[in-house]
């Protein structure tokens, strides 16, 4: 199926800073894509280029089959929910929602009906007469959302939609946004710095750094098959071991004194980064095959405990074990094991 929104080799500079560096991305119909990264990675600039609020220095932007690279923001069938919500303080909630419709030349009864519809969709049907400053933070966010969806855009752009909300409101709002998307059948592009939010909401996540997309993949793939160390580190704690490939294809990790079998062909002598999530490692009392070590430090986390295990050759392995059996104590000797499939090979 043809993408709804297509970014093709877009670059944007601000003075000497390259905010977006040769980025290409397709947003499919009815898809939710998250742009994830630390502040300054270029995710918001990319979103503003989609909205037409910034002009790319090179590259093209398509909506459906139309090249909209040069189109001003008011002529694009996409709408943006601003991080600040940008509700017009001098207009009522209803006037805010009707504003975008009026610009499309919608008048009279239809205008009222469609604005009411949008407000009902976000469950604010009876607050239309209020001014933005008379609303709570969560209600304001809904008004901003209603104002966008009233226009029935092809793509809804959301800039840090949860940033101004309390923690307990966020989870509920995430679910509501997803339900709304299904009901309306429009594509979402969400900018966020919170990997949990990205994984919860998006079909695909684009991890960005220094204006480039490091990896664009579904959440599960990003966690289980990260393309490189930066992406792997972005999604939680991870052990990264540098090893050297042997002639039989296995990788020798010198500082742990072990050799592991991994996927993929490696030239003998090539250096290979192997990664292993802490929760995939099982920890047991000494005995049986496995990597031996002594518990050097531990952090109790409630549902589990993080152990830092020092191996005889001096390396430290991070392990996350559920708090189901007898807990291990400081200084206790243990054996670590993991399934071979849990090992990941990262690009250097």
């Amino acid at each position, binding site marked *: 199926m043809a993408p709804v929104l297509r970014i093709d080799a877009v670059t944007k500079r601000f003075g000497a800073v390259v905010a977006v560096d040769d980025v290409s991305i397709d947003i499919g119909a009815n898809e939710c894509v998250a742009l994830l990264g630390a502040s300054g990675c270029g995710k918001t600039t990319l979103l503003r280029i989609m909205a037409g609020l910034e002009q790319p220095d090179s590259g093209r932007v398509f909506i459906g089959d139309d090249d909209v690279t040069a189109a001003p923001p008011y002529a694009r069938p996409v*709408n943006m929910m601003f991080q600040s919500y*940008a509700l017009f303080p*001098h207009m009522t909630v209803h006037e805010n929602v009707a504003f975008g419709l009026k610009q499309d030349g919608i008048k009279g009864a239809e205008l009222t009906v469609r604005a009411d519809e949008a407000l009902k969709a976000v469950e604010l049907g009876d607050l239309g007469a209020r001014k933005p400053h008379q609303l709570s933070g969560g209600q304001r966010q809904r008004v901003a959302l209603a104002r966008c969806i009233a226009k029935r855009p092809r793509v809804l752009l959301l800039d840090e939609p949860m940033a101004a909300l309390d923690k307990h409101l966020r989870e509920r709002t995430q679910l509501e946004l997803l339900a709304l998307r299904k009901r309306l059948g429009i594509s979402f592009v969400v900018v966020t710095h919170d990997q949990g939010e990205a994984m919860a909401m998006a079909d695909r996540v684009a991890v960005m750094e220094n204006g480039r997309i490091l990896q664009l993949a579904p959440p599960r793939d990003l966690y289980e098959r990260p393309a490189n160390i930066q992406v792997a580190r972005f999604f939680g704690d991870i052990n990264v071991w540098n090893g050297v490939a042997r002639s039989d294809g296995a990788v020798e990790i010198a500082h742990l004194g072990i050799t592991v079998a991994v996927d993929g062909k490696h030239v003998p002598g090539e250096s290979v980064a192997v990664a292993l999530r802490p929760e995939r490692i099982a920890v047991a009392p000494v005995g049986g095959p496995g990597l031996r070590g002594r518990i050097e430090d531990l952090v109790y986390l409630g549902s589990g405990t993080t152990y830092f295990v020092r191996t005889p050759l001096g390396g430290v392995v991070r392990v996350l074990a559920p708090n189901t059996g007898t807990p291990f104590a400081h200084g206790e000797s243990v054996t670590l094991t993991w399934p071979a499939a849990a090992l990941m090979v990262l690009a250097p």
Partner: protein
Amino acid sequence: MKPARSVLIAGLIFLYLPLLVVLIYSFNASRLVTVWTGFSTTWYGELFADRQILAAAGNSLIVAVLSASLATVIGTSAGLAFARFGSFRGRALLTGAMAAPLVLPEVIAGISLLLLFVALEQTFDWMPGRGLTTLVIAHASFTMSYVAVIVQARLSGTDRDLEEAAADLGAKPFTVFRAITLPMLRPALVSGWLLAFILSLDDLVISSFVAGPQSTTLPMVVFSSIRLGVSPKINALATILIVITLAALAAAAWIGLSRQKRRALQP
């Protein structure tokens, strides 16, 4: 800190005592300014019978209204450019030129503007003899700086989001300006216009240079009568001016306060 508060109180007394004295003595029956002989409103009566003062007051009002309006248009466009256009060629020079009248001694502004008007008269036979128009231009030449400062302060900040949101929702640039920017600017335009109005009403030095013989303003009349010797009429006039200003400011403050109260409802 206690000492700072004492200085504040002393400073406020310093600022208000002279005004209070003028106010009280405007109701003095005696012709001598310093001897209190009884309550009287004679001087107010004399003031309102003085045709010269009334004509000058009329001139001042006309000039103040026109120059404040002109200053608002120019100051607003400069404020808009500074707050919204980012860097443009000559920005530093324009910033300097717009800010200069805030500090430029009045005698410099006065003499230079007069020479301009004389040159225009010589070259194009424009405004021969000078009059209210030259006063309007001269007053707007410095009051527009205050308007620009106020407008720019109001526009800088997060309000940019609102304009972008309007564009994103399909509003063309002119609609954005009319429906979003202008309403947002309204308080700045009102206070900028008021400030320009008061400054114009109060100006003596620049007016003395550029006014024509038929366009004497109120401060010019007050100044010459102060120089000639004190007349209790001036006390009465001063009191009226103080009361008018206080009333206008009280109204503005009342409007501002009720707006603040509404804002305070925000969580």
